[in-house]
């Protein structure tokens, strides 16, 4: 038996050598196949690892657990419905935590909740008036002077715009506002400012204020979590500015790309956009989008004029005039306008100038690290809840610094989250019940309202004894309100964090490859708790599904490719077999059984398949290693998340190589079956007949 195998091997190798062209073609194709399998599997798995990293290790964990009764599907990055999803709730994290943590392969359990909150940044005029009020309150003369100048310059810009609009349409409202603006710019008003700051300020706030541009409201998707645990578990989250939120403190970590791509001062944002596209190889000259973006920057540029503190204006004017080679006496607004007429030649220089000269003198972001921002949200309870929360830091997801999707979430402590989410507490319910009771109002059904309300014998009007004398607004009947503690100063006992409502629980695994098994085990544990467990791909909505779609597409492509390859290989081998008819005839003539001939042919392919598979896999490994070196750039933001970074650095796993080898062998052998059968059908007599 051994001798026979040795013979087979010998024959096989010799014949491979002898039929070089067939060996080359068939081997080449199989090499190619193995190469493709290894590369595409490596890429696919790297993409999945990338997505996993950008999603699992930044926010979702391997598994998410949430209420079984949830109306919507958990979708951490937002789903396809309007508004916030209805995810049910988990009333107490601590009650279920241990059961989940006890499941095998669970490394960490992190409580979470998602709430949407708006952050309002006041309009420029409101902002200036606010600051002015503060200055008036403390009586800071020079501040008042500076800020008055800023209000004036905003009013001037508004008046200019008004004039432009008047050219298009003149309405009663616009002529009215013109009068107000003119008064705001008049000397007597500012003389009043010195005499009666309070009254003048009231006038400014109530009359001038409404004319200004409204502030922006940016919506933030907040992920409330146990911050210290979160930071320990989710190691892709990097704080790039500021610090982590200390235990027990209220605070928020804002995504850097949200800041840079949504909240930044618009002119700077437009310039950044153009800069980014230019580094990707676009030019202003050829791209209408870039031209339009620059036009937007130019249109928005007058804002710089009033965002600049007056004492900084001369320095900026000098720098701009120098750049534009114009006399320094020119007005700032036209200077800015010409400054933002940018082209490929001057863009980078002017960008630098913008950030060197203008950037430091105005506020580029609505808030900075250390500021306290106001988050507002319509709570679950139906109340509008606003909270002051300190911005402790800015974070990025490692490798995804640029992605707006990855950076769209902001992290907040659980206590703040609960308030914004408006968990209906027993205390509130009791209080509402008491209020209702003291109001003494009976429930009236809509259907019988008229009879219930007007069917009684009571008179409609009830005379109330009038209270005589001069009333005082601050009298004894005035409401007393407890001192309200500002939220940003509040702290909480870190140990109580777990003792309360969460919407979902992120589970991080020790060994992510055992996800399926752990998911099954967790589901079993969750079922009786009224919870459900889903993997990260389901928990992340669209983004998770993308990886599934990519996998499906790639697998289908490989399958089709192999199908075609089998046909082509089959053909090549059939032809090779036909050329060897006399060889097979001879073998049969000297007494080889059909089985032997069959084995010989299949064995040949197997040897070839194995060798070329190895070779192809080797090439694949080399190629992926090369790709790993250079990285595949992600063309779109969504792909950045999918890639786990701006570039995909694929790595190859041993399993990919094995899969490549196995697939090649299978394809090779499948393609050999028919030609091998042809070979076995060769009659011994052929050997005698010579060629053809």
């Amino acid at each position, binding site marked *: 038996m051994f001798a026979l195998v040795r013979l087979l091997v010998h024959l096989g190798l010799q014949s491979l050598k002898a039929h070089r*062209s*067939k060996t080359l*073609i068939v081997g*080449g*194709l199989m090499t*190619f196949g193995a190469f*493709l399998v290894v590369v595409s599997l490596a890429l696919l798995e790297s993409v999945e690892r990338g997505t996993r990293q950008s999603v699992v290790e930044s926010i979702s964990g391997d598994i998410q657990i949430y209420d079984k009764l949830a109306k919507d599907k958990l979708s951490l990055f937002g789903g*396809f419905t*309007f508004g916030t999803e209805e995810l049910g709730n988990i009333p107490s994290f601590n009650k279920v935590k241990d059961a989940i943590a006890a499941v095998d392969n669970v490394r960490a359990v992190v409580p979470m909740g998602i709430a949407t909150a708006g952050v309002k940044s006041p309009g420029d005029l409101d902002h200036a008036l606010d600051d002015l009020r503060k200055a008036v309150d403390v009586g800071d003369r020079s501040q008042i002077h500076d800020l008055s100048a800023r209000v004036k310059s905003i009013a001037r810009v*508004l008046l200019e*715009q008004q004039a*432009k*609009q008047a050219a*298009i*349409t003149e*309405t009663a*409202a*616009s002529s009215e506002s013109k009068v107000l603006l003119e008064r705001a710019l008049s000397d007597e008003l500012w003389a009043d400012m010195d005499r009666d700051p309070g009254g003048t300020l009231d006038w400014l706030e109530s009359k001038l204020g409404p*004319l200004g*541009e*409204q502030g*922006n409201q940016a919506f933030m998707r907040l992920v409330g979590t146990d911050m210290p645990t979160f930071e320990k578990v989710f190691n892709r989250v990097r704080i790039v500015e500021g610090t982590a939120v200390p235990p027990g403190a209220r605070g928020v970590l804002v995504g850097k790309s949200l800041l840079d791509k949504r909240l930044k001062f618009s002119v700077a944002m437009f310039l950044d956009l153009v800069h980014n596209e230019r580094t990707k190889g676009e030019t202003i000259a050829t791209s*209408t*989008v870039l031209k*339009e973006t620059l*036009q*937007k920057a130019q*249109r928005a540029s007058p804002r710089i004029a009033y965002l600049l503190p007056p004492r900084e204006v001369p320095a900026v004017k000098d720098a701009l005039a120098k750049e534009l080679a114009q006399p320094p006496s020119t007005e700032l607004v036209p200077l800015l306008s010409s400054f933002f007429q940018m082209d490929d030649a001057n863009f980078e220089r002017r960008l630098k100038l913008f950030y060197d000269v203008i950037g430091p003198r105005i506020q580029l972001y609505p808030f900075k690290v250390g500021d306290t921002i106001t988050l507002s949200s319509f709570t679950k309870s139906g109340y509008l809840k606003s909270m002051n929360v300190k911005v402790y830091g800015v974070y990025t997801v490692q490798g995804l610094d640029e992605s707006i999707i990855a950076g769209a979430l902001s992290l907040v402590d659980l206590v703040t989250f609960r308030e914004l989410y408006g968990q209906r507490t027993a205390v509130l319910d009791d209080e509402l019940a008491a209020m209702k009771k003291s109001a003494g109002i009976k429930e009236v059904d809509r259907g019988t309202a008229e009879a219930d309300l007007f069917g009684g014998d009571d008179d409609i009007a009830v005379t109330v004894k009038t209270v005589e004398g001069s009333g005082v607004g601050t009298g004894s009947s005035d409401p007393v309100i407890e001192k309200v503690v500002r939220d940003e100063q509040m702290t909480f006992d870190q140990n109580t964090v777990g003792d309360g409502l969460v919407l979902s629980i992120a589970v991080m695994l020790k060994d992510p490859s055992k996800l399926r098994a752990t998911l099954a085990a967790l589901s079993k544990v969750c079922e009786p708790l009224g919870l459900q467990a889903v993997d990260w791909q389901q928990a992340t*909505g*669209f983004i998770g*599904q*993308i990886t*599934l*779609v990519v996998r499906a*597409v790639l697998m289908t*492509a490989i399958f*089709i*490719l192999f*199908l*075609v*390859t089998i*046909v*082509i*290989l*089959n*053909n*090549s081998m*059939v*032809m*090779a077999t036909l*050329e060897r008819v006399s060889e097979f005839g001879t073998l049969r003539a000297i007494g080889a059984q059909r089985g032997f001939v069959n084995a010989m042919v299949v064995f040949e392919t197997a040897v070839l398949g194995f060798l070329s598979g190895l070779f192809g896999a080797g090439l694949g490994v080399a190629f992926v290693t090369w790709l790993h070196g250079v990285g595949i750039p992600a063309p*779109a933001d969504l792909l950045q998340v999918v890639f786990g970074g701006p570039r995909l650095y694929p790595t190859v796993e041993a399993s990919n190589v094995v899969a490549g080898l196995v697939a090649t062998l299978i394809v090779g052998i499948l393609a050999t079956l028919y030609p091998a059968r042809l070979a076995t059908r060769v009659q011994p007599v052929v050997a005698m007949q010579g060629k053809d």
Partner: protein
Amino acid sequence: MIIFEIARNNLLASRRRTLFLGTALFGVTLLFVLLLSLTAGVTDNLIRGATAVSSGHVNIAGYYKSSPTDSQALVTNVDTLKAEARQALPDAVVVIDRLRGWGKIIADRGSVQTGINGIAFDDEADLFSMLTLAPAKDYRENPANPEETRGNFADLQKPNTILLFAGQAKLLKAEVGDSVTLRTETLKGATNTADVTVVAIARDLGLLSGFASFVPKQAVIDLYQFKPGVSGVVQIYLKDIKRSTAAMNELRAHLAKKGYAQLEHDAQPFFIKLLQTVPGEDWTGAKLDVTTWEDEGAFLVQIINGLKAVSLALVMLLAFVIVVGISNTMTIAVRERTREIGTLRAIGMNRSSILMLFLLEAAILGIVASGAGGLAGAGIAAAINAAAIRVDVDAMRIVLLSDTLHLVPRVVDVVIAVAVLTFVSAAAAFFPALRAARITPVTAMQSAE
């Protein structure tokens, strides 16, 4: 032509290999055509969706701001604008206008926010050619007859009617024949409503249909108390959609010359401008905004590019395999037929004819096999399209821009696929054919020695 005959006869003679290679070519062409049909289908979804549901080829939209923070999507003197459009664009085939509202649809058991388009039924043949009635299963839970469709688009001619899309109907738990209430605010801020009857529920068109509903124009005029001559947008359909961008520029120039104030071009759909861009701009009054359908569907074009890239990559890989297969086969064929080639050379056939002979052989194989594959692909695509297979994965729906698999087999795509594959197979035969052409006539004699 005798070379052709030799080539064809050779193919027929070596039936087995012709069959194998043919099958491969057939399959790849079929796949190619399917992919092209899919891309065309998605593009079609986009174009039809964008151009029927939310845009013309070119649009004159307008924004009106009574205060700096206000934003209304309306144009005044719509008839004058239509005349301007006709004047500026002689190749405009259809010029219609629609009213645009935004409000809440309230049914007994639910409510949704949506855009409300006021249309004149008779102008909108294009729109209704692309809408189909949704089967009950699309919007009702456990319907007795899941495939049943009810309603009639033509009923939109009647006053106080509305067309919803399945996704909205599902949220509203509404049914054809139900009465729903539209609630909006007039320009002065007063609440207004209209009771309308659902006359048709159309199938979803991917993302685009989520924010659209259609009612007769008068309903929107009543809701907003518009004066005569006010409309939402003028939609212009050109003879050739490819001219959209050029037409937009011409129209912009024309309107500028006539003194209309315009927004600078911004490739964004109108609702982004209405809700995000325009409220933040500090002018008041009215401005026009001329856009193309591509602007209105800008965020969806990426999807099509991705689809094209994937198709191209796959077809290239497959073509590579085919090239290897054909060149291998041809090499062997040349070897087998060395003497014949020598003879042909001896009796006076020149090299280029020998080269042609083999190229032709591969080309015939290519054109026949890929032709059949192309036709089969087109047939299968048409069948899949007719079967209207539903897609249940959200991500897929986004990619396909539809809730069903829509494939458009186009003649031009079949021709392209067949031409490419024929070229590929002929090209694959080039080196073997060159080798054949180098065979000396001496070989014809060699068997003798």
